């Protein structure tokens, strides 16, 4: 064992990694909500979603982590960026709500967070008696095409009709372009 290998302790690395992931999530979320420039908000959202992908990784589902990157970071934030570019020249930030309203919203949120953390810590979450440990993608695939095949079909139908509807909406928005 070389001295360097002795210094790197896997559990410590894992802990530091988790700290980074959590920091990215919160940092991104705060940028996404508190900053005034809408482009900063989208970048913050992307950062937060990277963090969430990391959390999924730590929760033992690399598949979902990649899906999060693909769908959320890759598709949703890009779509939002496009919308910003198409709909608003990047100018000055919008005036925000009055201080009083912000204070009200803030106290509601602090209250809800307090309640949620009280609940999270005060509840006994009982694990099920029999627990399968099959976290493979194969298991997900099998479930998607057997038990949840209707779910799979329905979400494709929803996506198809929403894309159609989105096209129709955006097209007629231009006036009667045939």
């Amino acid at each position: 064992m070389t001295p360097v290998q002795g210094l790197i302790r896997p559990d410590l690395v894992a802990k530091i990694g988790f700290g980074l992931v959590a920091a990215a999530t919160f940092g991104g979320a705060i940028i996404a909500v508190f900053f005034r420039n809408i482009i900063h908000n989208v970048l913050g959202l992307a950062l937060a979603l990277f963090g969430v992908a990391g959390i999924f990784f730590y929760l033992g589902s690399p598949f979902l982590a990649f899906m999060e990157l693909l769908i959320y970071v890759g598709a949703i934030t890009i779509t939002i960026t496009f919308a910003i570019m198409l709909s608003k020249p990047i100018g000055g930030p919008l005036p925000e709500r009055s201080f009083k309203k912000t204070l009200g919203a803030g106290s509601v949120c602090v209250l809800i967070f307090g309640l949620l953390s009280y609940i999270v810590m005060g509840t006994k979450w009982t694990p099920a008696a029999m627990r399968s440990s099959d976290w493979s993608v194969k298991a997900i695939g099998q479930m998607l095409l057997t038990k949840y095949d209707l779910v799979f079909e329905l979400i494709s139908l929803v996506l198809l009709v929403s894309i159609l509807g989105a096209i129709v909406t955006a097209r007629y928005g231009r006036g009667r372009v045939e």
Partner: protein
Amino acid sequence: MNSLTTYLLIAAMLFTIGLFGVLRRRSLIAMLISIELMLNAASINFLAFTKFVSPDPATGQIYVLLIMGVAAAEVAIALAIIISLYRWLRTIDIERADRLRG
């Protein structure tokens, strides 16, 4: 290595930040971004419970996949509407979009 509580607290925090954004922001796109944060908080909850509580790992993961699919459709629809509304209003600000009496 982390306990269930850690993940649930992270999710609760993310949910609250998103909620604050929805209540406070005026810009429509910023509200949409905040809603995405709330949906992600729910996803973390689902996966954490799948890891620590649920008997079957696949169900929770499929639920999270489903949330992503729905969120993608939702964003596509919202943005299509925002873009075409923009052509009428030339600004995206919910309090200026108040020609309809609230």
